[in-house]
């Protein structure tokens, strides 16, 4: 772990200027009546300006908790941030008080969710909700805010925005609501980081394709960084620049998107890609190469590699401790004894 922390710090000092957000050694636990759930364990990550980082993994891997730690949406209690720092533009967000965090939310750090209906206020018109965000961050009058809102809705490609601003959230389709949420995220003066938590999971595929394309275009146009939380490797392949594969609260593999798909190295990453029926290798296959077993109970998991019980290459050492980082290539790292060869003797 030390080595890992050291190298990330070194990396940070080299390219400090480009880095928008860095999380250092973050651990988050939940204290439930059944015991302590270690949801995120010693996680490090960096997001550069204008970059899309995807956190990918299945349910319970800690990807959403990681994102919620950034703008402090983890419910406390039962949640508790055990250790670590979240450095955003030189400040540790975990040291800020409620007021400071609230002013950061929706201003420099915005978030869009899986189900936009639950994050839009059902009793206010779309236009008013977005205009309110404008007025909160700029010193402008309502008329001007409305004009800007219409322009913004145009930017996120909502047809006939002059009429749409008068609609209530339930009058919009799922895709349109997600667009409105994105517009709201862009209403701040200088959008820095957009956290997109499963933004397309509730949408149909043709609509998903539209939203992913929109996020990609906006990112390029306004140099925004995106933290994309998803379970869908296809979505990762379409949008991410960098990828972190998570499993049971741990980082398993980290790479840029091209080398991850070209050379998936962790047995879990491989298994995840092999589980996809759309994988090209299955053109004439009759069965999928599935990962056996299920995710372990986070309550009982100790220091072992959490994937050990499902891994085809599991060794004794995997049961004893979690491996250190192995760097395979520039920016491509993996945490696995099988890959680093240490457990083989």
């Amino acid at each position, binding site marked *: 772990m030390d080595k890992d922390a050291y190298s990330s710090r070194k990396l940070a000092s080299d390219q400090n200027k480009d880095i928008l957000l860095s999380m250092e050694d973050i651990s988050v636990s939940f204290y439930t009546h059944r015991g302590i759930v270690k949801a995120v364990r010693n996680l490090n990550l960096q997001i550069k300006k204008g970059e899309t980082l995807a956190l990918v993994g299945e349910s319970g891997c800690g990807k959403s908790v990681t994102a919620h730690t950034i703008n402090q949406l983890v419910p406390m209690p039962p949640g508790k941030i055990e250790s670590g720092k979240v450095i955003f533009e030189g400040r540790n967000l975990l040291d800020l008080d409620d007021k400071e965090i609230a002013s950061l939310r929706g201003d420099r750090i915005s978030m869009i969710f899986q189900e936009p209906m639950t994050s839009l206020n059902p009793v206010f018109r779309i236009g008013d909700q977005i205009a309110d965000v404008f007025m909160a961050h700029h010193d402008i009058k309502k008329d001007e805010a409305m004009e800007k809102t219409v322009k913004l809705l145009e930017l996120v490609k909502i047809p006939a925005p002059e009429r749409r601003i008068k609609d209530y959230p339930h009058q919009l389709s799922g895709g349109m609501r997600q667009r409105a949420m994105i517009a709201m995220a862009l209403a701040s003066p200088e959008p820095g980081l957009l956290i997109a938590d499963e933004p397309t999971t509730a949408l149909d595929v043709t609509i998903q394709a539209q939203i992913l394309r929109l996020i990609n275009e906006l990112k390029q146009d306004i140099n925004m960084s995106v933290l994309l939380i998803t379970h869908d490797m296809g979505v990762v392949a379409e949008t991410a620049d960098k990828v972190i594969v998570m499993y049971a609260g741990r980082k398993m593999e980290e790479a840029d998107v091209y080398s991850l798909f070209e050379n998936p190295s962790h047995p879990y990453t491989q298994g995840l890609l092999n589980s996809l029926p759309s994988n090209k290798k299955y053109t004439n296959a009759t069965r999928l190469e599935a990962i*056996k*077993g299920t995710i372990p109970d986070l309550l*009982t998991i100790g220091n072992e590699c959490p994937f050990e019980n499902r891994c085809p290459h599991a060794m004794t050492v995997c049961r004893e401790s979690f491996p250190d980082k192995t760097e395979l290539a520039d920016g491509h790292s993996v945490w696995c004894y099988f890959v680093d060869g240490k457990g083989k003797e």
Partner: protein
Amino acid sequence: MNTEIKENTNKQSIEKNSLFKEALFQLKGNKSAIIGFIIIVGFILMAVLAPWLTPFEPNSQEISIRKTAPFVSSHILGTDDLGRDLLTRIIYGSRVSLIIGTISVGISLTFGILIGLISGYYGGWVDRIVMRFIDIMLAIPYVLLTIVIVALLGPSLVNAMIAIGVSQIPQYARVVRASVLAERENDYITAERSLGASNSELMFKSILPNSIAPIFVQATLGVGNAILSSAALSFLGLGAQPPTSEWGLMIASSREFVTSAWWIVTFPGVAVLLTVLGFNLLADGLRDVLDPRMKD
């Protein structure tokens, strides 16, 4: 396949508890529920063990010791205007209250569940007719409705129970119907229907057990409510008739002594208050525990 079975079911540390047991477990951590539970258990014990708890008879009058003050003689809570031991009458009164609570809630439960279940399950015109009728019943003030029913049947304890039970049916029917409507939409009902289960099997074996939680809360509240109502009816002379030791009746018949012998009015009142409080506390606790929205 066998190794896969092992992989699939190993490594899970799930306790072998049913939902109900889990609810009981959580109830242990709920202070108000525990206080309520203790009061209710005390109340039930008092009713069951009445003859062994007191050396006196509830109806034996002794004019010579009438209106004895509390805490001075062997009559701990004093005596009433006819020289009857007040504590004994309160203890025996708990029997009456317990019976009223159970029977009237039993009546409301039976019919409320039937009506709510049928109306919610079948929907359509059945539902519309039943619910309009229920709406009409709900539009009549509860006390007025009870009084009308007692007036029709004649004042007696049994009729008071029936009146309280009947006038509460709409509340139960509504609660049952609401949870049936929610439960009916679940896939497991469709699944069991696709297996060939009949309507009555679906209604009573699948939907009812799953909608029981809110009914349980309502019934617990209902017992307290029924005790209160019966006291009110007896107070008005429409419920228990003298010389029954019924708390409401005891309060009513000693109104005139409020200033001269405060204990004759006060202690039965405290008994009513404590019992109703006990049921309300338990019901609140149950609601917290059984409400799925409260779970993580």
